[in-house]
């Protein structure tokens, strides 16, 4: 047998094995064989087709199309290839477009996407980390060695931690290994977030010349909510002089350059202040964080903020008319305001990395906490999926139900033993990261009613920051966000998603990481420009006639 024939025979055998693995749904094993074949023979048509199919299944039509094109060039009359090419084109330019689709790193990413499981640390990385560690330990001046190789240590940090994890496991220290794994995940997440940050082009608007005084009017200036506090922080970071107050007294207070009033219809003094300020030609922005016109009577905040009295309804209308711009936190709410004829700008909700609780590492626990937090999801929403949740809790003993903020909701699970359920009271918003750290799977059921359709995506963003996967009803903002969790419409879908997440810790980790990377773009330092854009618009065009939506 000639060498070439032996090579062909060996390749044929490997393809048979790979097809067998595919039939057995052993995607990782099949993929590694085809990728290896393609690396050694970039013109292997079978490998190009199979790899293309796998990239297409993972949602990367760009890479799939490139592979099909290469295969088609080798065999232009192949009808199956032509169909696949057309299919990839019809999907559009989705996916990351891998430059080396058969390379180890690309294959690891593809495996992650297909299986939801984190790819194991490549042996090459571990060997490099071990070699570096060895050089440092055996050097005459370890501190100097560390200082000289800081960049390399930084790059190899996940691998160095992996070595420690394996050591801990072999020393019979599963608790230490678990803690190190958490650390490794956080380090990996931070690295991916940094990559995402570097890859994104930050558009710093050249027209952020406004450095004037901004008055934030809110019903409770002593305890402003997160949206107000974050707005104040990011405006201050852009050089504005920010004041938070509950009213404006034209006789006593200095005239601000622009005013943002939060839900002004909720307090008469806020509307009076708006009227005074409008009379003084101060540019006014009204910020709304809910669809008050469609707020259901059963909503706990309805007595305080709903349009349940003629005065409050008039105040709501008046505030919109007085304002030069309305800012909102969800695209659906922006559509509603826009269709009512008011100029509107979307300012998405954000988070602030300076709150150390966001980055505090969670402890390890041997159970999966299924969590629900009161608001925006309500008791009735949780009740609608209660049966499904109980079914999963009963089936899987290593799960626990965590209910935050609503005791009636906690009582929905009274049939569970006390050890399998936990109630935590609500906390101020600054401490919310702590509550999230008690949850491993966040549930966000919501009724398909107009009010809830306008919900902001903030709960998913916050879950992403803490690396928590979520299951949510398909509200428009949740659909737009879609990173780091699963949407569920029917009870069957809720059951399937919850069970899958409860059983698969790797999947939870992967989704959590995805959500974390996405949440970076809503960090205040990146997302705060929306406030500046709103102010810029309000100051330059007091009563614009068009809607501004962010790209």
């Amino acid at each position, binding site marked *: 047998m000639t060498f070439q024939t032996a090579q062909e025979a060996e390749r044929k055998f490997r393809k048979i094995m790979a097809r067998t693995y595919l039939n057995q749904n052993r995607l990782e094993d099949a993929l590694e064989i085809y990728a290896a074949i393609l690396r050694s023979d970039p013109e292997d048509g079978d490998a190009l087709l199979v790899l293309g199919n796998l990239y297409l299944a993972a949602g990367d039509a760009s890479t799939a199309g490139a592979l099909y094109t290469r295969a088609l060039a080798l065999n232009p009359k192949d009808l199956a290839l032509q169909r696949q090419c057309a299919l990839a084109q019809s999907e559009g330019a989705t996916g990351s477009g891998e430059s080396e689709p058969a390379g180890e790193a690309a294959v690891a990413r593809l495996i992650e996407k297909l299986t939801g499981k984190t790819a194991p640390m490549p042996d090459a990385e571990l060997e490099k980390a071990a070699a570096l560690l060895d050089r440092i330990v055996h050097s005459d001046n370890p501190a100097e060695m560390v200082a000289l190789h800081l960049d390399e240590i930084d790059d190899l940090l996940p691998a160095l931690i992996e070595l420690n994890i394996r050591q801990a496991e072999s020393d019979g220290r599963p608790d230490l290994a678990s803690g190190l794994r958490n650390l490794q995940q956080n380090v990996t997440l931070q690295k991916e977030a940094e990559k995402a940050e570097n890859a994104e082009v930050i558009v710093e608007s050249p027209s952020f010349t406004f450095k004037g005084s901004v008055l934030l009017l809110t019903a409770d200036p002593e305890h402003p909510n997160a949206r107000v506090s974050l707005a104040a922080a990011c405006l201050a970071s852009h050089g504005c002089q920010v004041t938070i107050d509950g009213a404006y007294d034209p006789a006593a207070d200095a005239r601000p350059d622009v005013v943002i009033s939060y839900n002004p219809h909720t307090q008469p003094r806020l509307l009076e202040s708006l009227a005074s300020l409008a009379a003084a030609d101060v540019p006014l922005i009204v910020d709304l964080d809910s669809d008050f016109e469609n707020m259901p009577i059963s909503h706990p905040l309805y007595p305080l903020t709903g349009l349940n009295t003629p005065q409050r309804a008039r105040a709501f209308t008046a505030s919109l008319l007085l304002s030069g711009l309305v800012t909102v936190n969800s695209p659906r709410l922006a559509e509603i305001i826009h269709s009512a004829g008011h100029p509107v700008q979307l300012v998405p909700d954000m988070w602030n990395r300076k709150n150390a609780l966001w980055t505090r590492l969670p*402890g390890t626990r041997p159970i999966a906490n299924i969590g629900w937090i009161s608001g925006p999801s309500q008791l009735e929403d949780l009740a609608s999926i209660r049966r499904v949740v109980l079914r999963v809790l009963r089936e899987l003993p290593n799960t626990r139900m965590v209910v935050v903020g609503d005791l009636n909701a906690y009582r929905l699970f009274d049939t569970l033993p006390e050890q399998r359920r936990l109630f935590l009271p*609500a*906390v101020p918003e600054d401490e919310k990261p702590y509550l999230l750290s008690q949850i491993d799977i966040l549930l966000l059921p919501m009724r398909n009613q107009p009010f809830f359709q306008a919900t902001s995506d903030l709960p998913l963003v916050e879950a992403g920051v803490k690396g928590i996967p979520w299951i949510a009803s398909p509200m428009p903002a949740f659909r737009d966000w879609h990173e780091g969790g699963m949407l569920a419409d029917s009870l069957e879908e809720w059951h399937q998603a919850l069970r899958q997440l409860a059983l698969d810790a790797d999947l939870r980790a992967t989704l959590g990481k995805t959500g974390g990377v996405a949440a970076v773009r809503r960090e205040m330092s990146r997302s705060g420009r929306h406030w500046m854009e709103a102010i810029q618009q309000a100051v330059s065009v007091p009563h614009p006639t068009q809607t501004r939506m962010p790209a």
Partner: protein
Amino acid sequence: MNIVYVCSPQEADRESVRLRCHNLAGALLASGWHQASVVDLPAFLEMEPGVVALVHQADVLVIHRYAFGPMLQTVQYWKAHGKRIIVDIDLHERDLLARANLLEARAETLPLARKTGPLPAAHALRSEELRFTLRLANLVTVCSPRLADDWSAYAPTVHLPDYLNLDRYLAVRQQHPGEIWIGLMMAGDGRTELFPGLVDTLLEVARLRPQVRVHIYGSPLPGSGLNGLSADQVVLYNNLSVEEWPRLLGNLNIGLAPLSSEEGMRAGRARVLEYMASKVPWIASNAQPFREFERYGILASNDPDTWMRALLQLVDHNDQYRAEAGGEAFLYALGQDVRENLDRILSIYARSLTDPTYFHQVM
């Protein structure tokens, strides 16, 4: 370690606060190695700036007794900020929940409640709130093994016995030759409980032995009053403060420590320990809190005849019993000074710094 004790300022809690908080805080500070402070519960709930600054620097918060009501939200707030939480309980649950006047009708006005917005309609029962708080706690310390049994289902629970500050028991004895003083401290914290017939027994002993003087501290004599005895044979100290009690203890010839109820079975050991530290012979109910001291005094079952015999024995042979009380019993009590046991106390507190051992607890 920096420890902040959160305690009630109520008069009814004062003795317990001294025993379970001030004693320990004082010993920690005196060691020179640790920081300790005691803050009032209302100021803690109100998040007064001085208290907030103090708590921010603490490693461990010890919440004495009242771990329910608005304390649940406050404990969670501080847990979110990395504090380790120890709940110290020295009362039966029934007693504990019945004493929560301090926490009545405060919740909605407190700073944390104002920040979190209006609460849903349902209110937890106090017992529920207590359990919720215990699930948040890193550790529960209790004054008796029975209380450890009660609470160990909710959090890692450790028996932290009562320890004394012996400096308070070094008062000069008042001499009263020819008289035998029998003392009964009726503080309102469940550490002394009368059983049916005990008062009559005492009065009968006073009748049989004219040299006996029955001293009742802290409460009027219940039941039939003086019952034909002269006023100098029964001495009542109605408004005694807890600070004065140690000074008066040393004047006694016989100390009594009766316990009778389920609540009493959960009491701490301080009462008998105080007698031992003051070299006073004692009779106590044959109850769990006192069994470790069996060899140093008399444990009697709760019936009038047994107590009558024990009392007459101690009255008739008081000099001998006083000599014994000044020996081994006193030496044992010296070893129960809080400063002598600081290492043990710290090792218990240090357990709160490790991760919880119960899977159902809150990280």
